């Protein structure tokens, strides 16, 4: 079974600062994807960024980037030039791919509550 661990329950930074959220995972699988989801207060969960495990290059999406270390099973999220609208719960998630079974469920970490202060 796969597990995802987010060791920072809460983080707080000032607007415009850079912040890094940590995530580690445990799996024996070789084919999988990793995701960061954002859940703003009282709003639905949305995808922030994704990473295919077979790709060595780290994914980037505007102010969001990841540091994917496959051997260390680490997948951190960096938010640059943080904005008030980045305030949310952030979840790291793992998805296994199986031949014949296709994409599987998302396995989520416990989440990190990020607050951006003005």
């Amino acid at each position: 079974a796969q597990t995802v661990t987010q060791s920072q329950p809460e983080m707080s930074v000032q607007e415009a600062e850079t912040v890094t959220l940590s995530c580690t995972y445990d799996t024996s699988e070789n084919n999988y994807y990793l995701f960061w989801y954002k859940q703003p207060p009282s709003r639905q969960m949305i995808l922030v960024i994704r990473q295919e495990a077979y790709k060595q290059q780290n994914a980037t999406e505007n102010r969001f980037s990841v540091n994917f270390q496959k051997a260390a099973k680490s997948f951190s999220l960096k938010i640059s030039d943080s904005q008030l609208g980045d305030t949310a719960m952030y979840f790291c998630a793992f998805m296994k791919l199986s031949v014949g079974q296709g994409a599987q469920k998302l396995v989520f970490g416990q989440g990190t509550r990020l607050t951006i202060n003005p």
Partner: protein
Amino acid sequence: EAEVAQSPRYKITEKSQAVAFWCDPISGHATLYWYRQILGQGPELLVQFQDESVVDDSQLPKDRFSAERLKGVDSTLKIQPAELGDSAMYLCASSLYIYDWASLNSYEQYFGPGTRLTVT
């Protein structure tokens, strides 16, 4: 922009009562997921459908929970009888298809706003 719809948004019920949640996925999405998110934790899968068939219900407490997706479109999740420990957010998500190896876009899961259940 197409969205996953869920109703009701909030539900308060007494323990031992029956409760049902409804989800309408994005049009054309073959795969539908129900997740349960206990306050302060990450979501956990309850059941996954591919069209009208159950793909994974290994974590669904089948003595009290049931889920159906009769026509392969919308879905209903039922709890009977509800227990205090069932208080949580119930999230529905959908994705286009799970067997298209060529496109990660087919796996991406889109979430609805959730149903917040409180059992008293």
